[in-house]
């Protein structure tokens, strides 16, 4: 199962290396969002520092939608998904492979976003381990649910408009937890950021398990 999943992951990453959609188109969009938030909230760095953790995760969610749509497009643009289903690779392996591929791309985007935010908003980090742990778990929640909802929206034939409506509410609890954890890591809120990691862990694990169990059935119906 994991050999096949890794095969799918490698293929998705190779396609990204060839097409450079994420690096050349989605990454600049990410950075633009952050800059526009800066303009919208005025150049008051104190306000930007307070809202920075929330802005980071909202920006990440917006670009995740694009990355998810791209991940689905790879399989549907020339009906490669039919060939995948006929190949003998199990739906669970396809799901895991595509989730890992999306995860790696989102982590790269988040690192870029993080660096720009710290520099642009003049923020200082108090706990890197908390930043890294919450990013790892939240990104898993985003990529696991995104892979699932991407194929659901694709099957309904209105992917571009429906995906955000389905996807964003599901991620709301994860974004609340991630924002609190980041706020603590940046020293901007008094809450215990590590306590929020428990919630993030549960969300990430549940979303991944639900995806693994249901992806095949959803793929059959699309």
């Amino acid at each position, binding site marked *: 199962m994991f050999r*096949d999943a890794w*095969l799918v992951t490698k*293929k998705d990453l*190779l*396609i990204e290396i*060839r*097409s450079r959609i994420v690096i050349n188109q989605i990454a600049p969009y990410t950075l633009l969002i952050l800059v526009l938030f800066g303009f919208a909230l005025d150049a008051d760095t104190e306000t930007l520092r307070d809202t920075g953790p929330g802005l980071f995760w909202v920006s990440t969610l917006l670009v995740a939608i694009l990355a998810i749509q791209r991940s689905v497009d*790879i399989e549907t*643009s*020339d*009906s*490669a998904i*039919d*060939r*995948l*289903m*006929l*190949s*003998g*690779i199990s739906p669970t392996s396809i799901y895991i492979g595509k989730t890992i591929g999306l995860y790696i791309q989102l982590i790269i985007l988040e690192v870029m976003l993080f660096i720009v935010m710290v520099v642009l908003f003049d923020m200082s980090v108090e706990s890197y381990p908390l930043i890294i742990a919450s990013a790892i778990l939240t990104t898993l929640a985003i990529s696991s649910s995104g892979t699932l909802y991407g194929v659901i929206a694709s099957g309904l034939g209105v992917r571009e408009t429906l995906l955000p409506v389905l996807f964003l509410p599901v991620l709301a609890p994860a974004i609340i937890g991630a924002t609190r954890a980041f706020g603590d890591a940046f020293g901007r809120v008094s809450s215990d950021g590590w306590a929020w990691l428990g919630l993030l862990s549960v969300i990430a694990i549940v979303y991944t398990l639900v995806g693994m169990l249901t992806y095949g059935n959803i793929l*059959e119906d699309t």
Partner: protein
Amino acid sequence: MSTVINLDQSIVFLGQFPALTGVTMSIDQGEIVLIKGPNGAGKSTLLHLCAGLLPMRSGTGTVLNFDLQRQRMELRPHIGLLGHRTGLYPDLTVKENMKFWASAYGSNDNEIDKAMAFFGLSGRLESVRSQNLSEGQRRRTAFALLLIKRPSIWLLDEPYAGLDDNGRELVNSCILQAVEAGTTVLIASHQINNIGKSDQRTLQVKGGRITIEPEEPSKGDDHVS
């Protein structure tokens, strides 16, 4: 010869639309069967049903002894389907597409090289992204993928679309070699009446069901080459 496809009153819906309204047919191993019919008759749906990609609403059916109601997942690895679209990744080169699918099918580099050479994809075309190929070249690549998968049944939907005369000859030759080796081939096409094998059958699909199943082979019909 053993029966590899057996459908009895098979009904398939696409959404709310009954695309197949009670298909009954039986196909033996090693047969070439041409499926003809007007646009929207249900030819592609019939091929997708036989591939295990569409569920049956009612009726019974087996393909390679796999029950189409309960064992579609198990059936799929044994099927080669070439649809209207080629199923290639546009951003990958011909060789990268071949290598990915070969890994998925468990085929080796030697099989890749042989299939690519057979369809004239070796050399310069290897490193061309599939999005930059012509329609005919994409078709050839899709056929090369069929070869490396080695399926027991080939389901070909308009396989000659976009191919030049040389491409059609290659495809015909490839199909005949596969049939010699015991592969069963179903071809849905407007463009051919005869593939060059005397004991082929022709099925007529209309309104989602088989309307004619000629007893006599279609000798003397147009032969695409």
